[in-house]
């Protein structure tokens, strides 16, 4: 049982406040959507939850069965997909998947191939990522995120750069989060995408 506690976090860059005193509580089988205008700090909040950015005030804590998860253990349980996540142009799709499995200390090549098939990348698995289109990149990022069977899934604008077919796969993924015992948090600008979440936070209304 994984739970997330966000206590009263505020973030400011060079004395300019992005958001003030946000608190959240979330747990497994629970999905949360973050919405808000451009510049309301959706991505910053997601990065803070992923521990990529430190909040100016407040704390973000992950617990597994009442025990706090240390930052170095968090890496293997958490996956993050975002438009600003970039991959290595010189490496191929399959090399990325091998690298991520080694970094996260898992080994599941069958799942990797399955994911590549699911996201219809199996033909280009030996191509260098530098030659990929932005839609293919987004699909590959999902393969990389899902190959570790993450307990915590953070998605920033999940359907950006994807075609209709891709969007359907992602909507299935958002629905399946409950079944897979995943803690899902995503940001979105589309009203239609809010229905997949158990709860919605509007950062503009908090202010």
């Amino acid at each position, binding site marked *: 049982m994984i739970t997330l506690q966000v206590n009263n976090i505020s973030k400011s860059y060079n004395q300019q406040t992005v958001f003030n005193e946000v608190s959240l509580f979330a747990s497994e089988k629970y999905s949360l959507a973050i919405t808000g205008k451009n510049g309301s700090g959706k991505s910053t909040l997601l990065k803070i939850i992923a521990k990529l*950015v430190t909040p100016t005030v407040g704390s973000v804590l992950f617990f597994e069965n009442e025990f706090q998860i240390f930052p170095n253990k968090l890496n293997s349980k958490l996956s993050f997909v*975002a438009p*600003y*996540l*970039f991959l*290595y142009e*010189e*490496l191929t799709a399959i090399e990325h998947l091998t690298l991520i499995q080694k*970094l996260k*200390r898992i080994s599941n090549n069958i799942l990797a191939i399955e994911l590549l098939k699911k996201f219809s990348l199996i033909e280009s698995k030996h191509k260098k990522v530098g030659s990929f289109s932005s839609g293919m990149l987004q699909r590959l990022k999902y393969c990389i995120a899902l190959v570790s069977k993450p307990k915590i899934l953070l998605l920033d604008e999940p359907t950006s750069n994807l075609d209709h077919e891709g969007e359907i796969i992602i909507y299935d993924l958002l629905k399946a989060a409950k079944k897979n015992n995943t803690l899902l948090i995503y940001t979105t600008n589309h009203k239609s995408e809010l229905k997949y979440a158990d709860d919605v936070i509007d950062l503009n209304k908090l202010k």
Partner: protein
Amino acid sequence: MKIVLNILYKDLLCEIRTRHVIYSLLVFVLTTVFVLLFSISDNEFTVDLSASLFWVVSFFSTMTGLSRSFVLEEEKQTILFLRLNATPEQIYLGKLFYSIVVNLIINITITFAFILFIPTFVFSNLNLFILTILVSSISISSAVTILSAIISKAENKGLLLPFLSFPILLPILITSINLTKLSLGAFSFENEANYLQFMISYSVVLITASLLFIKYIFEE
């Protein structure tokens, strides 16, 4: 440790695919050596001069080649990928080993260029020279890796790296030059063991400090 080696493997693989560092390095070393040969006649090459020139060329090649390790990740915005999947300490160590490998290649290339073209570059103590190259590659890498991480967040990166690293690298360069003079047979009362100890302890201190502080550099 396995994670560190995988980061190293990834960096080397990317480098082999693009050969960016290797090519720029070869061009750099060859042009500098040829300029030296044009401007200095054979009998003007004293042992002291060639030992110093060796490390001058090495310093500037390092600045062009090694600064890439963290800067490239930041410029191509791939650092996020690493940060999501490894701890700052693991990333640092991966980059450190990568720097050591590249720096050894740099110094070995320069050594061959100097042996071929520079008349006074003849060893009287080859073992000492090999030891010098090895130890100073490690020391220079331990300094440059953390500095490369430091400048990756700054704006005018190209200007900043030589500026920031010169004072930190100066002790290593001075000791390396002295050791090279000794291995080329310069008459001296100096004690080479002292110099080697100095460099080794310097890099141990730098690596320990870097491991302690690297997490603050990634903080935003």
